[in-house]
C-alpha cells in the first residue's frame, strides 16, 4: 500500500508569454520507507511537482488536474486548513539552496522551533529542548542554536535545513536538490546523514536532483522527468542498467564516470523544449536519435516494460520502420 500516490498531476503557470505547462500529467507512487529519486535537467518540472505535493506553488501556479492521494486525503483538493495539519507534520520539505533558505536575522534555534510551536502546540521551552535534540541528530552541537545563519558554513546550513524538516516528525521528507552547490566532501557527509536519518526515523523520501550519480547511490527507485512528464520510472537498478527510454540512456551516458573510460561522455544535441508550446507527440522526439513519424503523430503513454518498470517510448511497443539510408 503506497503512502503517496500521484495521478495525472498537471500544474500550470500563467505568465505573460502564455501558459507554462511545467508539470503535465505526472504519475508516481511513494511506498512506506521508500526513497524515490525525481531526476531531470533544469526546467523539467521536478521542483514544481514537489511543490505541488505541498501546495506551496507561487501565486501564478495552479494544480489544474490530477490527484495527490496521501492516506485517503487528496492533497490537490483538501482545504487549506486540512492541508495545514498535514504540512510539516506529515510531509515536510528541505528547500533548495540552503544558502538562501534561512532567515538571516533570526537565530537558527528560533527558526527550527517555529513549526514545533505551531504544530505541536507546546511552549517555547519544550520546543527549544526539541531543537537541541534535532541539532544533535544532524550532527550540530546543541549550543549553536543561539547562532545566526551567517555563522554556519554551507554544509552546516544544509544540516540546519534538514533538522528543520524533521522538526515535527514527518513521515515523508521531500529533499529538493539537497546537495547541489555543496562540495563533494560535504555532499558525501550530507548524503550519509540523510541515509542514516531515513533508516533511524523510518522516513519515506523524495529526493529531487539533476545529478544522477548522486541518486544512484542513495535512492531505491527513481523517475526521470523530461519537459513536464515522466519518461521512465522503476527501481534504480532497472533505470540505470536496463533503461527503456532513449532520454534516460542519453542522460546517464552524459555523466562522466571516474571508474569508466577516460573519454568525454556523450551529449544530447538540441535544446530543452519550450513548456509553453511543447513539441507534438513525444516531447523528446526533436532530440531523439531513434524518432520516426509515429513519435511526431502520437504521444506515447507510460507503459509497463517490466515488473514495476515503466517507460514512455514507442520503441517499446512498436517496431520502428527501417531507417532510410542517408
Amino acid at each position, binding site marked *: 500500500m503506497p503512502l503517496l500516490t500521484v495521478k495525472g498531476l498537471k500544474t500550470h503557470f500563467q505568465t505573460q508569454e502564455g501558459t507554462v505547462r511545467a508539470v503535465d500529467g505526472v504519475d508516481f507512487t511513494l511506498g512506506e520507507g521508500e526513497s524515490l529519486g525525481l531526476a531531470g535537467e533544469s526546467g523539467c518540472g521536478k521542483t514544481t511537482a514537489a511543490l505541488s505535493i505541498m501546495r506551496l506553488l507561487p501565486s501564478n501556479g495552479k494544480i489544474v488536474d490530477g490527484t495527490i492521494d496521501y492516506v485517503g486525503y487528496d492533497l490537490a483538493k483538501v482545504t487549506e486548513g486540512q492541508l495545514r495539519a498535514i504540512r510539516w507534520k506529515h510531509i515536510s520539505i528541505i528547500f533548495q539552496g540552503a544558502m538562501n533558505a534561512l532567515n538571516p536575522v533570526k537565530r537558527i534555534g528560533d527558526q527550527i522551533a517555529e513549526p514545533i510551536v505551531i504544530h505541536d502546540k507546546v511552549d517555547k521551552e519544550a520546543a527549544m529542548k526539541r531543537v537541541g535534540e534535532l541539532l544533535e541528530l544532524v550532527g550540530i552541537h546543541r549550543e549553536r542554536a543561539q547562532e545566526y545563519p551567517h555563522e554556519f558554513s554551507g554544509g552546516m546550513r544544509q544540516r540546519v535545513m534538514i533538522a528543520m524538516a524533521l522538526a515535527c516528525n514527518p513521515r515523508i521528507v521531500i529533499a529538493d536538490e539537497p546537495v547541489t552547490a555543496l562540495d563533494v*566532501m560535504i555532499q558525501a557527509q550530507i548524503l*550519509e546523514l540523510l541515509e542514516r536519518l531515513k533508516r533511524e526515523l523510518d522516513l519515506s523520501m523524495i529526493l529531487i536532483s539533476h545529478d544522477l550519480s548522486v541518486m544512484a*547511490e542513495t535512492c531505491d527507485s527513481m523517475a526521470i522527468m523530461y519537459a513536464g512528464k515522466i519518461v521512465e520510472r522503476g527501481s534504480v537498478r532497472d533505470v540505470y*542498467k536496463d533503461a527503456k527510454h532513449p532520454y534516460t540512456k542519453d542522460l546517464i551516458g552524459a555523466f*562522466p*564516470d571516474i571508474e569508466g573510460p*577516460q*573519454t568525454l561522455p*556523450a551529449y544530447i544535441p538540441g535544446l*530543452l523544449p519550450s513548456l509553453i508550446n511543447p513539441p507534438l507527440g513525444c516531447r523528446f522526439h526533436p532530440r531523439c536519435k531513434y524518432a520516426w513519424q509515429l513519435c511526431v503523430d502520437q504521444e506515447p503513454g507510460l507503459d509497463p516494460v517490466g515488473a514495476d518498470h515503466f517507460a514512455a517510448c514507442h520503441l517499446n511497443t512498436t517496431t520502428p520502420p527501417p531507417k532510410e539510408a542517408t
Partner: protein
Amino acid sequence: MAREPYLVLRDFRVWFEKRRGFFEALRKATPEYVRAVDGVDLDVGRGEIFCLVGESGCGKTTTGKGILQLVPPTGGDVFVDVPKTVLDEYEAAKAGTGSADLETIRRQHSLSWKEHRPWTIPQFVLLGILLAVGTLIGTTVPAFVTAAVFHLPFTDGWSYVGYGVVVALLVAYFGSMPPTRPTPRITLVLGGLAVLAFNLSADLGLVFSGYVDAGGLYQSRIWGDQTLAMLGGNLLAIGVAVFVGRILIWNRLREEGLEGIQIRGLRQKLQIIFQDPYESLNPKHSVYDIVAEPLIVNGLGRNRAETEARVEQALADAGLRPPRDFLFRYPHELSGGQRQRVSIAGALVLDPEFLVADEPVSMLDVSIRTEILELLLELREKKGLTYLFITHDLSLAWVLADRIGVMYLGKIVEEGPTRELIKNPRHPYTKALVSVVPVPDPDRRRQRIILKGERPDPSDIPPGCRFHPRCPVAFERCGWIAEEVVTELKDLSVGTPEEGLFAGLRADAPGAFTLPSAPPDAEATIRRLIEAKREEFRGLKAIRSIERADGGIRVSLHEFTEPELKAIAPDVKVSCHLFA
C-alpha cells in the same frame, strides 16, 4: 615532463589583507591575511590541459585569476612561455648554485615580479628629515631671490600662478632624482612638497621684501586681494609636481629596468572563461559588443570591417554558426550553452595561447556540457591552446585532463598525470576526494572515505601539514600543537569519569601542555586513554612524553614540520610526510 613548459608557477602566493578598524591597525603592527593561495608550484606544458581541482575556497579560482593579474599576486613567480634555459638558470639561482642573479631573472621574466624593497623605520625618519631640510632650504633661497629681484609682492595675480609652476617644476625635478626611490607613490609626496614650498617661499618672500612683518603675515592684503591667484598657484603646483614627477619616475623606472614585465601586451595571450555565463555577460550589450570589446580595448581591429570579420571568426570558432545570426542578439535571447560559447568567443577573439577555464560547465545542464568540453578540445587541436581548467568535479577532470593538481587550503598537495592520480592516489586528501565521487551506477557502491569536519579558515591555517586536523592517517610529525591535543582530550572525555580531570588542562606552549593539579593516578589514566583512543583521536599520537612536574603533569609533544611538495615517482609530486 615530456612537454615543453608553458606556464610555470613557483611559490605563487595571493594573500588578501583582512580589513581592520583604525584602532586595531594602530594596536597591531602586522596585518592579518587571508592566505587564499599560499605557495603554489605548478608546471603546465604547452598544449596541455591541466586541471586544478579542490573544494570551494581552496584557492583554485584565485590561482587562475592571480596568474592573469586579475587579482594582484602577493609573491612568488609566474613565468609564461619562458625558454627552458632561463627556467634552469632560475632554479639554479634559487638553489644558490647558479651564476645568474635571481632578482635579475625574476625582473626580466616573472609576471608577478614587483620592485619591492621594504622601508625600515630609520630610513623613514631619515627621509623625513632630509625632505624637510631640503624644502626649507629650497624655499628660503627662492624667497630671497624673488624678494631681491622681483620685489615681491607681485603686482599681478598671474605672477603667483607662474611662480607656483616654477616651484613645482623645481620640486618635481629634484625630488625625483636619486636617492629618492622610483615608486609611483612618491609623486604624491612631491605634490604635497610643491604646495608647501610654494606657500612657504611666497610668504617668506613677503616677509623678506619688507612688505609685511612676520607677525602680520596672515592679515596681509595680498592673501585678501589675491586669494584666487594663490589658490590657482597651489592647484597648479600640485598638478605640475605630480604630473612631471610621474613622468620623470617612469623614465627612471624604464632606464633602470625596474618596471618588470608589462602585463598589458601579454594579456592578449592569456585569457579567461568565467564560470557563470548568466552572470558574466553584460545583459545590455549585444553579442557583437561583448566579443568586440577586447579588440577595442587592445586597440586592434583598425576599422569596423576588420573588427567585424574578427568577431565573426571568433563566433564561428566558438561554434556559433552562422555567426551573422548571433551578432546582434542579446544574452537573454541565448540558451545557457550559447552564452558560454559567447564567453569563449570573447576569449578567442584576441588569438590567445593560454586559457584559464574557471568551471566553464558547472552552471550548464548535464546534457549539453560535453558539447562545450568538445569545443575546448577542438580548439586545442586547431589553435594549440593550453588550458588551466579549474573544476571541483574530479570525474570531469578524469575525462578531460592530461594532468591534475589537487589543491587544499591554498597549496597543491598532489600533482600528477590523470590516470596515475585517480587510479593510484597517494595523498590522504586525494584518496578521500577520489573515494567520494559519486558513480552513475547503483551496482558499484564504493568504499567512501568521508573526512570529518570542514576545511579550516584560510586566515588561520593549521601549522605543519595544513591537512592534519582532518587527515585520517595523521601521525606525530604532521603538525599537532598543544591546543589541538587538549581539545581532543577534552572531546574524548565528554561523558566519561575523566571529564572533570581534563577540564583543568592548559596549553601553555605550542609544544607542551600541563595539568596543574593532578591526583596520583592521573598519569596512568592519561596513558591508558592515549593507548585506547589514539587511532580515533589522531592528535594523541603527537604526545612524546608525560611526566610529573610541580605536583601536576606536564605533557610534551613531538616536533613537526610542514611537508614539501616533492617528486616521489616519475612525474608525481606529493606533499605528505608519509612519503618522506
